[in-house]
């Protein structure tokens, strides 16, 4: 059972690092508490939905910014959604605090109709999301390994 113990230790360490780096917050604990035997995949489901949502929005943002004549109102609406979905559970639970900050800057760029600023913000926000996604996928994979090893 040494392997299992090691896996569990790795998970604890990894989770701690995510908290430390601002990717996770104590809200994530609540998310995990809502998972039980009757809802064993709750966290995975929510996290998956979150990323689908985010990716859809990022695509929309990209498309809107790619238009010859940019609709800043539409842009702002999308960023608002992104910020919104990242400010309910996500601001706290899935470290989208980092994303949240970029979104605030993004909304300012929209207000100023600053195209260059918007493009930069889009780049930043895409980067943050892919970081968060990567971290979370690793975390969930580690949990799966533990389950598979009998933990």
């Amino acid at each position, binding site marked *: 059972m040494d392997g299992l113990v090691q896996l569990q230790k790795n998970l604890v360490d990894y989770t701690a690092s995510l908290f430390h780096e601002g990717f996770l917050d104590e*809200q994530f604990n*609540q*998310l995990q*508490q*809502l998972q039980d035997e009757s*809802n064993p995949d*709750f966290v995975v*489901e*929510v996290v998956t*939905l*979150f990323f689908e*949502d985010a990716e859809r929005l990022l695509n929309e943002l990209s498309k809107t910014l790619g238009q010859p004549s940019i609709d800043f109102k539409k842009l702002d609406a999308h960023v608002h959604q992104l910020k*919104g*979905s990242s*400010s*309910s*559970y996500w*601001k*706290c*639970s899935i470290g989208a605090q980092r994303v949240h900050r970029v979104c605030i800057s993004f909304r300012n760029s929209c207000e100023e109709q600053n195209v260059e600023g918007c493009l930069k913000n889009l780049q930043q926000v895409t980067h943050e999301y892919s970081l968060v996604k990567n971290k979370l996928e690793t975390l969930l994979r580690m949990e799966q390994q533990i389950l598979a090893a009998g933990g």
Partner: protein
Amino acid sequence: MAMALETRFHVLAVDDSLIDRMLIERLLKTSSFNVTTVDSATKALKFLGLVEDEFRTFESSVASQIHQDVDVNLIITDYCMPGMTGYDLLRKIKESKSLKNIPVVIMSSENVPSRINRCLDEGAEEFFLKPVQQADVNKLKPHLMKSRTKEENEQPLNNKRKDMEEIYSPNKTRLRCSS
């Protein structure tokens, strides 16, 4: 007393975000509520039996009849929704003869004091700041117990409605949402 144990409270949760709906549903079910979720205020009103035409005029007997089959004890709604907002929904409910006694709770991810006050003034029981916590959901039971007591005091009226139900729709089953 036996009756109180067997009937769970039924909460209608309204939120346009799928994730937030999932979360509020889990929180509510953890507290042993029966939960129905809808993704818009319009759908909420439909579920509650208030059909479009009845919004503006007095409620027809059809609308109130639909309502009798849907037993919602509390409505919890997001504030910011496209189309009809949670605030609009709150107002419609409080303006409705048949629905105005159902406690309404508003949720929002934005902490705007004027917004909060406006909702409370309009009759919302509570205003929860997202992310909604288990502790917030725990605050709901007292509001529900209060309306249940109110309902029980109006018992004779309820029985009368039940009789009417049998006359007009003897075969209709009472709509119950299982958890």
